[in-house]
């Protein structure tokens, strides 16, 4: 096991898959000469050349659509968005073309493509650059949506996404890129649609994905050290298809759940998880399921306000205590 960063894990996944399959290529703004806006594609242009690592104009709808066309013709494009905020310009291509092609062609044209880039807040990027795109894509049948929270999952899930025959929306995190973690040295593939128990516990289930895995991990430490509560952390990893079975199994054990997401509360991923829990584990609940999310506001620039808006380990601890009837 080597300890590498999330960024390096993604780079390794790209390199391994491009070596494995010559149909795999990367395109997007700054992916080539600049080595990627966040250096995820570092060194790939030199290794694979400009047709496989393509710097594009700043025209998200155009190059996303180009990727979709290439996928219809049998290639396996990886479209990098500098951030998912910019991908809103490509929403038509992703939703109307990529997600619908197989269906409306009666099964003739699948679209094996990966759209990837960082989502969510970084530091003081304010309203237009801090958005969590998860539910915008998870709502669309025809898309798969991954949001790994550790380097090992980033490596394994990106490899699966590239090999998948359907369009996959792959949401990373700017604040995750420097996160270090153990990653297997050998071939490591994480299947799409399988959640992971990141920590076992008997008292409360914390459901999370992406950046919130770290937040929940911190909260679980506090709960154990200061409140005698053993939290179980279920990292969804993929939010469409959602591995609700793993969530339900955990809730049946703990009888309590706190669902944590970075995005807005209204119609968020957490709302879907709570719906699934109430429907499939109603008789196992000892308390209403609690949710922790961002405040229902655009992102503020000022640091204290930004911090207040984002979900914190402290909030998760409070919610967990509440569902455990400790308050």
């Amino acid at each position, binding site marked *: 096991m080597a300890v590498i960063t999330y960024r390096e894990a993604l780079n390794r996944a790209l390199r391994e898959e491009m070596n494995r399959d010559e149909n795999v290529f990367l395109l997007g703004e700054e992916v080539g000469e600049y080595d990627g806006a966040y250096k995820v594609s570092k060194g790939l242009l030199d290794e694979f050349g400009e047709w496989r690592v393509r710097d594009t104009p700043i025209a998200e709808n155009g190059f996303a659509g180009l990727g979709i066309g290439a996928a219809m013709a049998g290639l396996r494009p990886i479209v990098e968005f500098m951030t998912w905020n910019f991908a809103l310009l490509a929403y038509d291509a992703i939703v109307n073309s990529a997600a619908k092609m197989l269906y409306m062609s009666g099964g003739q044209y699948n679209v094996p493509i990966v759209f990837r880039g960082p989502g969510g807040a970084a530091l003081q990027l304010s309203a237009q650059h801090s958005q969590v795109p998860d539910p915008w894509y998870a709502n669309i049948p025809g898309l798969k949506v991954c949001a790994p929270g550790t380097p090992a999952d980033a490596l394994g899930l990106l490899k699966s996404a590239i090999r998948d025959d359907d369009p996959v929306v792959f949401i990373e995190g700017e604040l995750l890129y420097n996160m270090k973690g153990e990653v297997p040295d050998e071939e490591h593939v994480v299947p799409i649609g399988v959640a992971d128990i990141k920590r076992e516990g008997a008292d409360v289930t914390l459901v999370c994905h992406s950046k919130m895995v770290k937040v929940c991990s911190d909260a679980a430490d506090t709960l154990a050290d200061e409140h005698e509560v053993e939290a179980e952390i279920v990292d969804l990893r993929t939010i469409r298809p959602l591995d609700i079975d793993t969530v339900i199994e955990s809730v049946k054990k703990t*009888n309590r759940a706190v669902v944590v997401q970075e995005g807005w509360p209204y119609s968020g991923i957490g709302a879907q998880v709570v719906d699934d829990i109430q429907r499939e584990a109603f008789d*196992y609940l*000892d*308390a209403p399921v609690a949710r922790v999310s961002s405040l229902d506001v655009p992102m503020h620039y000022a640091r204290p306000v930004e911090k207040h808006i984002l979900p914190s380990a402290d909030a998760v601890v409070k919610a967990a205590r509440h569902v455990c*009837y400790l308050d």
Partner: protein
Amino acid sequence: MATKVVMAQLSPTMEEGKLVEWKVKEGDEVSQGDVLAEVETDKANMDIEAMTGGTVRALLISEGDVVEVGALIGVLGDPDEDVSELVDGAKPKDVGEAEEEEPEAEEESVKAEDGEEAGPEAAEPEDDAETTTGTKPRTGRVKVSPLARRMAEDAGLDIARIEGSGPGGRVVKSDVQAAIDAGGAEAQAEAGASGQAAPERAAAPTAALRPARLGDERIEASQMRKTIAKRLVQSIGPVPHFFLTTEIDMGRALDLRKALNERLSASGVKVGVNDLLVKVAAEALARHPEINASWDEDAVQRHGSADIGIAVAVPDGLITPVVREADRKGLAQIATEASDLIERARNRKLKPEEYTGATFSISNLGMFGIDEFTAIINPPEAAILAVGQTAERPVVEGGEIVVRRRMRVTMSCDHRVIDGATGAAFLQTYRAMLENPLELVS
């Protein structure tokens, strides 16, 4: 070659069309693209155009007709072509004048909507936020987590008898677990036998109301109404009632009252029948202390004085002012106190201590012409006397039918405290005292 002219689908949602006007007549020459007819669709008036050229051979519907999309409405062809097969083969089906049927349908849908709107709202059950935190069995809505409910069911535990420690008194996993650890269903059953018993029905669900109709009025319950509801449900649910009725000859009692009032006229005090009934009840209770008692979980509490509650009807409910120690007071004093209490009760001027803590109650509906009825015990009292009107009734005395002033009373008894015989003995005394007022002083 003959070509059909059909009622064209001119919008994605169009199902039928109304012919506004034919723009051609039979025999006219038309070319492709010529307008044949103007049609009113569900959206607008539009033209039907000729798909091919030719002679108009037949126009099969009239202006104003409404036909389904696809229905044959005309035929184009060569001037001398035989089109009879086409014309005869497909007489258009008139779907009728839509306007005629519409009002009725509309009316019905309005009705249905009204019913739907009013129904659920009117039937919405009250959510009683108040919770029971004591060890007594709770009634009304029991809050319980789904898990706790399932655990209790599995363990054979009555959830209503488990104290909830969660928010709003919600019974949660730990509460049920504690009950299981404490011995589970057996322990609960024992507790029930020895006095902690919960009612069979833990909750008194509000029956679904019929859908609201015109003229119905929903009046929000006052706090008083809510308290009455809660208290009475607490009673008839957990308190095992039984009822004893007897008929009392009131002749002498009424004569006595009359005589008393004549004597008291100077003092301004007026003794009512009720006062007499209170006094007699207090005396009878003094002689039957087993009736003047309360059920207290694992014991019967006998009360040292007969504090008699008098049910008083007030707007929006009733209240029960208490005449304290009626067994130790004379009729005049009872009359004076009761009169004051009743007046202040009607003016809502009673202090809480003046309408709580009775040991026995009397409810008299005689003034409403009621012959007899049963009253619901006001816990923790063990009995209540329901008094009907005093009326002249034929009675057999010594083989003769005579007319006597008679009054029927029904005592509701808490069987946990009073048994049939003890209750009957009390009533016997009560009756004897009224029929022979000398008993009062004996």
